[in-house]
């Protein structure tokens, strides 16, 4: 993606540029995700990323670097508007500038700058905006970027005066953080270019840093990188383009190799120094809860306790109140230790809103085991009555997020989401959707790479269609498994092998682009730019550039507001019944009708939520469920876990009385009694 050529920010391809400070490879567009860094463990130093207008790989990089015992460097390449020389046609010229975060504050500055580019200045950042960021302290390092950077480009245009004046301006703004970047891409005249850059730096008394541009893991990925670049540019591999990689030199290499190509001790030393200064770990020690509405002089914990104890007599009859109260006290203590009160109050605020506006909503997931959630009205069923454990959702030994998913009638989810956006707007950045990293599947990879190889659209569509239902979710590197399909459509044409060999090189988990998550919302008391840049999806939804795993690792708490079509249907049905018969159906208080169980047991479950699939129909007919618990067990049977662990058949046989439950030792026997001695959950 190059903003200079007027491409939109939402590029179809999402690229990683990495900076491997082991020998400082500063990269441009990459064919590899940060996953690659685990492979780099042989180099015990550091690895880094400097993507184009994005830090989306940062959390993954920190994780991989942490595992490999390296330090991670997080940076970004930003388009910057430089004032053009007088009497030129355009007022500004856009050149990339590489910014590296020296510390956490630096990372926040990066996030703010990226957000600014995406939300308000898609053509490029005014230089003043970066100078303003620099004035907030010594948090960033600035590199003049590689082949597209202004020293190189202006040098090639023989506009030395321009290059010098830009460098002077930058030196004045960033007196201690500016470096002239030296790189080696095995292009013609590379040595002369290096001499020129070094001369420029010496004249202006600026330090140089060895930072070769790297954008692929291994040399043999060059065809893939080229094809992906072509797909992104919308051209085929026969069309020349300045942005296409010119050779396979920009792969990850060893310190010795780069040292031989860039034999400048000062530059190598500076690179090592930068890698040490800029080492950064984003993963925090504690979770951050969003801030609920509180009364003056009241902490979140106090509000939570007050609300829970007020609801206690309303939800429990006197005889059950004792047990509930003991359990509540225990849960509140856990919440207090983990400082999660704000989170529960926030979830309660959302469900309150739904109730007040007549929107059907119900919490689910492990939160259903909490008396607290029941009392707050987040979940609708009593965990004590159903014998559910609180520890499944939250315990003091757990540092990960509790899982509260709220199902909302799908037709009105937008209303809830826009209210949430307004409610936590604060400084305009307190709320955003989690992103989904859309990775390549066979059909999308065939479309993109096929276009790059010049396959006509009809042929590509036929290929995607023929891949059909079964290979649709296949990862591209398994393309050879579906070779029969490729042969059917493409015959023996040489393009078939070219396409297959390209597909095989696509790493599993290679991210194509970002799209908003279906329901994950992150709420935060402080601006979200503290954690991540904010971008707008093509549908206009504000989102983070991290997916749900990244968000969890960043210590943010995600609330899942999922749309459920069945709830929307129920909501409508209730209205229709009201209109036709004047009767209001209270869904919480429906009678347990034996005719319903009879119908379910006969296998006649068409259009019944969760049990209409053929597999469930078979199970209902065999198991003949008679209660909600039995039905819940049956639904739980058709999941990957029980199927793979071979729990299904023993459960079915024992439930039908065809096999005795084996004798288990005591704690297990009571726990597993309802599931006939099998581990279902």
């Amino acid at each position, binding site marked *: 993606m190059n903003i200079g050529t007027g491409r939109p920010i939402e590029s179809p391809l999402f690229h990683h540029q990495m900076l491997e400070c082991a020998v400082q490879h500063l990269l441009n567009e990459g064919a590899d995700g940060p996953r690659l860094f685990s492979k780099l463990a042989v180099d015990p130093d550091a690895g880094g990323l400097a993507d184009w207008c994005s830090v989306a790989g940062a959390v993954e990089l920190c994780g991989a670097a942490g595992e490999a015992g390296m330090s991670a460097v997080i940076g970004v390449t930003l388009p910057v508007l430089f004032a053009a020389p007088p009497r030129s046609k355009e007022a500004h010229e856009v050149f990339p500038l590489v910014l590296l975060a020296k510390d956490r504050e630096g990372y926040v500055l990066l996030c703010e700058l990226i957000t600014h580019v995406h939300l308000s200045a898609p053509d490029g950042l005014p230089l003043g905006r970066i100078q303003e960021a620099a004035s907030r302290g010594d948090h960033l390092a600035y590199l003049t970027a590689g082949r597209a950077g202004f020293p190189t480009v202006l040098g090639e245009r023989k506009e030395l005066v321009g290059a010098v004046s830009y460098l002077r301006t930058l030196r004045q703004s960033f007196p201690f953080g500016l470096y002239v970047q030296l790189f080696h891409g095995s292009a013609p005249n590379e040595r002369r270019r290096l001499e020129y850059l070094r001369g420029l730096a010496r004249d202006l008394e600026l330090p140089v840093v060895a930072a070769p541009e790297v954008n692929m893991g291994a040399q043999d990925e060059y065809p893939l990188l080229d094809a992906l670049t072509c797909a992104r540019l919308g051209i085929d591999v026969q069309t020349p383009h300045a942005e296409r990689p010119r050779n396979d030199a920009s792969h990850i290499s060893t310190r010795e190799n780069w040292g031989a190509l860039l034999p400048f001790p000062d530059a190598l030393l500076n690179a090592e120094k930068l890698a040490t200064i800029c080492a950064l770990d984003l993963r925090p020690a504690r979770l951050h809860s969003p801030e609920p509405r509180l009364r003056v002089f009241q902490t979140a914990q106090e509000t939570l306790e007050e609300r829970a104890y007020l609801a206690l007599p309303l939800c429990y009859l006197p005889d059950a109140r004792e047990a509930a109260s003991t359990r509540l006290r225990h849960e509140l203590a856990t919440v207090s230790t983990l400082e999660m009160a704000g989170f529960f109050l926030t979830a309660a605020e959302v469900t309150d809103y739904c109730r007040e506006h007549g929107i059907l909503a119900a919490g689910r997931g492990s939160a259903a085991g909490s008396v607290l959630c029941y009392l707050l009205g987040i979940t609708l069923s009593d965990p004590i009555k159903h014998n559910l454990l609180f520890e499944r959702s939250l315990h003091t030994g757990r540092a990960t997020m509790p899982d509260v998913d709220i199902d909302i009638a799908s037709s009105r989810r937008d209303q809830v989401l826009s209210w949430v956006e307004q409610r936590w707007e604060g400084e305009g950045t307190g709320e955003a959707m989690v992103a989904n990293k859309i990775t390549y599947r066979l059909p999308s990879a065939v479309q993109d790479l096929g276009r790059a190889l010049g396959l006509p659209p009809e042929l590509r569509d036929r290929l995607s269609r023929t891949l059909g239902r079964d290979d649709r979710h296949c990862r591209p590197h398994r393309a050879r498994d579906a070779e029969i399909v490729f042969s059917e459509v493409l015959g023996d044409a040489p393009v078939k092998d070219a396409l297959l060999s390209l597909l095989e090189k696509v790493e599993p988990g290679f991210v194509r682009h970002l799209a908003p998550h279906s329901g994950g919302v992150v709420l935060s008391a402080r601006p979200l730019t503290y954690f991540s840049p904010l971008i707008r999806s093509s549908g206009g939804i504000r989102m983070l550039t991290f997916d749900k795993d990244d968000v969890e690792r960043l210590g943010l708490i995600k609330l899942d507001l999922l749309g459920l079509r069945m709830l929307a249907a129920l909501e409508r049905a209730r209205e229709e019944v009201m209109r036709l018969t004047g009767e209001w159906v209270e869904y919480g208080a429906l009678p347990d009708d034996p005719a319903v169980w009879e119908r379910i047991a*006969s296998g006649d479950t068409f259009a019944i939520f969760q049990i209409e699939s053929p597999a469930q129909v078979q199970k209902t007919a065999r198991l003949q469920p008679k209660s909600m618990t039995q039905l819940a067990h049956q639904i739980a049977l058709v999941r*990957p876990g029980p*199927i793979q662990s071979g729990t299904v058949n023993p459960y079915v046989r024992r439930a039908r009385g065809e096999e005795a439950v084996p004798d288990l030792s005591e704690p297990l026997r009571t726990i597993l009694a309802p599931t006939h001695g099998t581990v279902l959950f």
Partner: protein
Amino acid sequence: MRLPNTPTPPPGCASTVGQEAQRWGVSLRGACVNRSGVSYRAENERTVRLPLVVVEGVSETAARQIVQERLVGGKFAGVEDFYDRVEIKRDALDTLAKAGAFDSVDTRKNRREAYYVLNVVANARKPGTRGLLNPQTGAPELPALSPDELLLLDLETKGVSESGRHPLDAHRARLRDIGCLPLGSLRHGQAGWTAGLVVTKQRPPTARGFAFFVLEDGSNRVQAIISPDLWEAHWVLLRDARALIVCGEATVQGRAVTLKVQRLSELPLGSWASAAD
């Protein structure tokens, strides 16, 4: 979390919705520009009116526009009146005519005629504008559509038919001739030939290569289990088939019927896209 094996509720599996409604004693009424709303609506306790959005190409915005115009300016008097008052895309208009949305306003209740009139006015002026000099829209004598053609049009444009007919209805005698039992009369442990419309196709990764097809005939549905060998031998046919003739042994438990397929062949039905594609 979406479980891997639960298919999304079929949005109108060919004729399944219609057949199921019939079994429960609910009659469906077709989409109609003067009666349908944006979403499904119960007209009384035994009748459900199809919404305008089931018609392919009619977006929620377009449906809203139609309903709003109807509320403001009264019922539509005919195809021409509709064309002059509502500004929606031409292909959506065509599909509405084919789907029978004008059946109740049209004088002769013939979809062909509605389509003819629509084309005459559409060639004369833009939609949403009232013309000064109007062309003659009287249609020539057009033959009525046969019930079979109506069914195929319904399935093609709406994915559901209010007629209560099933695509297999036209093939029953032929199927009886070759010894196919209807799905409803399969008995436990009995092997034999039967036929049905393919409603869903699944080949979950956990199933070690087995494929599960749901076949439908009227209000009966059967799960057909296809072994990896059979899949290997017939995968092109299985990928493209809309209806299948299969031979196998049935396991019947209440309404849950599974069929272990031993032999199979395609049943050609004509050209319309089914939801299983």
